């Protein structure tokens, strides 16, 4: 693995050259006693997370404004602190506001958060340590930090991900509180084009980091096609989960490599060393 991956470069481009001072992402002393806050990857993650924490404040305010008439003053803040999942919170609140009841609200929220299942599976091979520690690291998954921590070839930098998530958490909760108590300070965040930030950032990570020629590019194209086809047909949340099916082309690759030497060399060059 190269010391500086294209995906990491993309993130660094967002946060300026100061963040380029870093160590190779391979070893974080995950099994050692080193404090995570001393880890260069953690600090790099925090720096990468700061612009998104600013966005989290604004989106948190809009959630607080939207949720206060539905839930009162305390519940929206508790929800932001306990869930830390924007899309699911907006969806569940919208169901409650429409009088849909708890079961429908829970279903909408769970469907939207179900993507953390396959995202966690993708993250899993990069995690070491006991089950409790791995479960705790999983709690640090949010879309942006998970995507930014991807290093290509199926590898993730969990320490970077935790650092990148950290600034967003207090900002999301505080933003919610501001929205609840202070109301509509900023107007509609959509007027600022904030909702285009995240897909554009994911697209940049995809183009710069994940679109390696061969199977990764095919998996990305297939995943996009599956999601695109399902958006009008299924409830929100399902298109992303269904897109995981695209990864199954990895099985075709594995079978191919058992048959011919071309396939075998493909497997080695595109998927990286299998541990």
């Amino acid at each position, binding site marked *: 693995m190269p010391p500086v991956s294209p995906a990491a470069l*993309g*993130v660094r481009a967002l946060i300026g050259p100061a963040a380029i001072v870093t160590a190779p992402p391979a070893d974080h002393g995950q099994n050692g006693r080193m404090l995570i806050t001393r880890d260069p990857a953690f600090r790099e993650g925090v720096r990468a997370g700061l612009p998104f924490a600013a966005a989290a404040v604004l989106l948190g305010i809009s959630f607080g404004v939207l949720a206060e008439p539905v839930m*009162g003053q305390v519940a929206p803040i508790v*929800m932001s602190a306990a869930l*830390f999942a924007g899309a*699911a919170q907006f969806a569940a609140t919208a169901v409650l506001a429409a009088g849909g*009841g*708890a079961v429908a*609200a829970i279903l909408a*929220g*769970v469907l939207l*958060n179900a993507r*953390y*299942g*396959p*995202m*966690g599976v*993708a993250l*899993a*091979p990069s*995690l*070491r340590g006991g089950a409790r520690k*791995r479960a705790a*690291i*999983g*709690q640090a998954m949010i*879309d942006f930090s998970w*995507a930014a921590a991807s290093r290509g070839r*199926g590898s*993730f930098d969990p320490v970077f991900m935790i650092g990148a998530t950290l600034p967003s958490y207090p900002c999301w909760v505080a933003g919610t509180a501001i929205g609840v108590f202070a109301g509509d300070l900023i107007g509609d965040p*959509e*007027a*600022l*084009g904030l*909702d*285009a*930030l995240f897909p*554009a950032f*994911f*697209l940049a*990570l995809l*183009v710069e980091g*994940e679109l*390696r020629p061969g199977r990764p*590019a095919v*998996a*990305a194209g297939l995943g996009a096609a599956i*999601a*695109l086809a399902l*958006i*009008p047909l299924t409830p929100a949340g399902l*298109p992303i989960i269904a*897109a*995981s*099916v695209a*990864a199954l082309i*990895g*099985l075709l690759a*594995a079978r191919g490599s058992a048959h011919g030497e071309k396939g075998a060399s493909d497997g080695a060059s595109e998927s990286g060393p299998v*541990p």
Partner: protein
Amino acid sequence: MTAVWVTIGVLAVATAAIRASGPVLLGGRDLPAPVHQVVGLLAPALLAALVVVETFSVSAGGGLEVDERTLGVGAAGIVLARGGSALPAVAIAAIVTAVARALLS
């Protein structure tokens, strides 16, 4: 009000469980080669799906809708295709989306 707290409580537990599931079930050990091949392709597939889902909305008629946000992300795509990096792409996406909304609303 009970419905609100039930929703929050159940969703909090469910979300934590979902976030923990992959790392607990598949982490901490070396996976068999075929599983590893599949898991390694999840990131590009999911990332591409995230882009698509957050770029297109569903129109009132039940089809895919191209709106201001779609234009913004499309503009970011052009920047990236021309070799631009993430920062200008993300900035262009927000600016194009905001300007299109201001003009069209």
